[in-house]
């Protein structure tokens, strides 16, 4: 007795481009019949094991692009980092609930690292007017900066790597510290994407400082 087997989509690698020292983007051919909502993710299959990656393309785009954090010594991201165009891949999905929901509340997107991916997909899908905090160590990790800046009402890079990592217009500190001091009190629709610690800390902050807010979140490991 087993539940329904998720559809396994077969695809191939079309291209790869480096986003930063520790991240790259891969583009896959879009299999027939595969649809998704901006903000969702897929599970790439490596034999019996699956690894989750967020889509950065908008649903209407002809191909699928994934944002991959290159984990040093990591089996799967290392494999993807050297895979040749044309290599076959398979995946299941779409998964996840971090999709944009219409609301009278001002949207505040908070991401750490490659957790920015769902918000790139949303921006490419036409979502705009949001406040975006992107927490990274150095300015080199501010992937997709220009296009996010264009869609956001306020784009606030939060750099935690110290003074040597500073870039023009960036906040020096954690996203949580910015929220404590830089975001006016009120009710917002928070969308959180990134490390579990960030999601825990921001959730506590929202409970204490932004009553009446909503939280939608996706944890990246």
């Amino acid at each position, binding site marked *: 007795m087993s539940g329904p087997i998720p559809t396994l989509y077969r695809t191939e690698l079309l291209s790869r481009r480096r986003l930063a020292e520790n991240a790259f983007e891969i583009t896959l051919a879009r299999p027939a019949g595969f649809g998704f*909502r901006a903000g969702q993710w897929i599970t790439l299959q490596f034999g019996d094991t699956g690894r989750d990656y967020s889509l950065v393309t908008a649903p209407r785009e002809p191909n699928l692009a994934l944002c991959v954090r290159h984990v040093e010594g990591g089996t799967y991201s290392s494999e993807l980092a050297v895979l040749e165009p044309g290599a076959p891949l398979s995946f299941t999905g779409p998964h996840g*609930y971090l999709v944009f929901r219409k609301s009278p509340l001002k949207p505040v997107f908070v991401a750490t690292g490659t957790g920015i991916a769902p918000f790139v997909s949303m921006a490419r899908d036409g979502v705009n007017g949001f406040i975006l905090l992107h927490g990274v160590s150095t300015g080199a990790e501010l992937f997709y900066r220009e296009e996010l800046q264009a869609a956001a009402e306020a784009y606030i890079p939060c750099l935690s790597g110290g003074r040597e990592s500073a870039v023009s217009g960036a906040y020096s500190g954690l996203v949580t510290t910015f929220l404590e001091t830089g975001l006016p009190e009120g009710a917002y629709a928070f969308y959180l994407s990134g490390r579990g610690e960030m999601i*825990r800390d921001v*959730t506590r902050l929202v409970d204490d400082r932004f009553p009446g807010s909503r939280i939608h979140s996706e944890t990246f490991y």
Partner: protein
Amino acid sequence: MGIFTRTGDRGRTSLFSGERVTKSHPGVEACGELDELNSHIGVVIGLLPADAADLGVELKAIQSDLFQAGAWLSTSSPSASGGLLKEMDNGRIGVIERAIDRMERQLPPLRSFILPGGHLSGAVAHVARAVCRRAERRVVSLRDAGGPDSVDQLEIIMVFLNRLSDYLFVLSRYVNQVNGVADNPWNK
């Protein structure tokens, strides 16, 4: 996917639609009852004989329905669901009604109240039935408390749970019979 997020350590949690609420919120209470019901159904599935695969598939579909129902109960309005939730409709209720008829045709007519029990699978199905009734009461309480706005879904969930408790009653008798255990009538 990690199991613990620590975002609920202080007695609050997020509804599916994103609102932060206390864990004693009626929607959270109702979801908890569905979770308990779903877990008991899981035990029944685990106790089914190997040749009852079809029944297992049927029960797993019901478990999926309960997940869907839980998500609706923790969604303040249809628009806040982000279009991610499948609308529940009368189709699944019809499936359960036909399953009740199918099992009843294979059972002796009921002439008195019966005591919960029998084979372990039947006994657990009775527990699931009682929890299902409690879940239904919690959903009614949620409706009476004025929320959520998904009134159509709430009403379908109420009918679904009402019918599901009947299904679980018949299921308990059916799995008892499959396992060679007769009904245990209530002798007043």
